[in-house]
């Protein structure tokens, strides 16, 4: 199992039946491959649809029906289309039950940085700020450390924020961490790691809950 599958399998179990869910591009999309039996979700794409289905067969693409990355989509029975004002009304108005985003940095207050690095070209925040601010549950999925092995889960984000105090869950290949008012609570660790290893790779202090830390199931 690679990181995407691990994160995808565990992340998908954070959803409850009937939720309206928006998945960011990249690793967040992998969650859609592992939705448990009996859980039916409504997927939103912020460019204007709810209830989209799998990628169309080649030759059957509708040029007017794409996701937020401009990749072709299909629509399922019960789906619907709407304009951008309505789409972001749904997002900012708290009608999206869960959003899953990638991060550059996340910190113990639930601050989230995922759209710019000072000095580098800023491609823009797109819908990320609205999604992180408005969704009822914000999950960030990430490799636990960056490519150089430095922690991405920090005491305080150093990069400019995408949203302030908005993250509810942090999920990596090593751990599932809940963001609470008292800081980060370590809920689950991967089978192949230890609490000590997870803490050593996390700058923020992880609280161990009274009920203990579970071993993650995939």
């Amino acid at each position, binding site marked *: 199992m690679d990181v995407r599958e691990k994160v995808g399998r565990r992340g998908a179990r954070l959803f409850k039946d009937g939720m309206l869910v928006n998945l960011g591009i990249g690793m967040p999309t992998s969650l859609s491959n592992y939705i448990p039996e009996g859980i039916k979700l409504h997927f939103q794409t912020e460019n204007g649809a709810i209830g989209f289905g799998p990628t169309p067969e080649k030759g059957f693409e509708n040029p007017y*029906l794409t996701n937020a990355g401009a990749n072709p989509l299909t629509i399922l029975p019960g789906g619907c*289309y*709407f*304009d951008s004002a309505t789409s972001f009304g749904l997002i900012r108005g708290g009608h999206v039950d869960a959003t899953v985003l990638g991060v550059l940095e996340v910190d113990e207050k639930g601050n989230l940085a995922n759209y710019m690095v000072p000095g580098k070209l800023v491609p823009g925040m797109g819908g990320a700020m*609205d999604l992180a*601010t408005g969704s009822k549950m914000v999950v960030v999925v990430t490799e636990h450390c960056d490519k150089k092995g430095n922690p991405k889960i920090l005491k305080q984000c150093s990069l400019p924020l995408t*949203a*302030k105090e908005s993250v509810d869950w942090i999920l990596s290949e090593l751990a599932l961490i809940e963001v609470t008012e008292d800081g980060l609570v370590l809920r689950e660790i991967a089978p192949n790691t230890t609490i000590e290893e997870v803490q050593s790779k996390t700058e923020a202090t992880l609280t161990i809950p009274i009920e203990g830390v579970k071993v993650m199931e995939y």
Partner: protein
Amino acid sequence: MAKIITADEAAAMVSDGDTILVGGFLAVGSPEAICDALVSSNVKNLTLICNDTGWPERGVGKLIINKQFKKVIASHLGTNKETGRQMSEGELEVELNPQGTLIERIRAGGVGLGGFYTPTGVGTPVAEGKETRVINGREMLLEMPLRGKFAFIKAFVGDKHGNLRYQATGRNFNPEIALAADIVIAEVDHLVDFMDPDDVVTPGVLVDYIVRRDI
């Protein structure tokens, strides 16, 4: 009745320095024939209000490649590297807005509101220089309306009265920009005599000109 014109006639109305709003999300739902005509007309120093700057060969991205903008107000530029290059080298001013804030600012401009408070962007670079206010216990930013001289729309079906209907995610910014410009020009895939009044998304009274693509 909306007047039916060619894409070149539409482009010819635009003058150097004008502000244009263009529909489309990564060029899906963008008026390609009008974009081509604007490239041909080579009008310069435009200000663009659009979700993004499309692709080098699609949507408003074609105008970026042709260096027709002095300023872009958008939410994302990542699919057109030339936008980034022009921005880095100081050739182009870029104002990035959260997508929900951008479309809501356009809506405010179109429906006569003076501005609105939104929680999006609080504590981020977007908040710089903006007034904040705590409403119902939550910090909010004041965002101001946006308008332009021209709105260039892409619709799937238009009728002779100017009514428009979109298809799927091709709708995106189009309905809101129809309210936020002095002159509204819609490029349509199909032109019909009239449509079911419950099927209309953009009321025809907003649309000044229609550019046909089915002829």
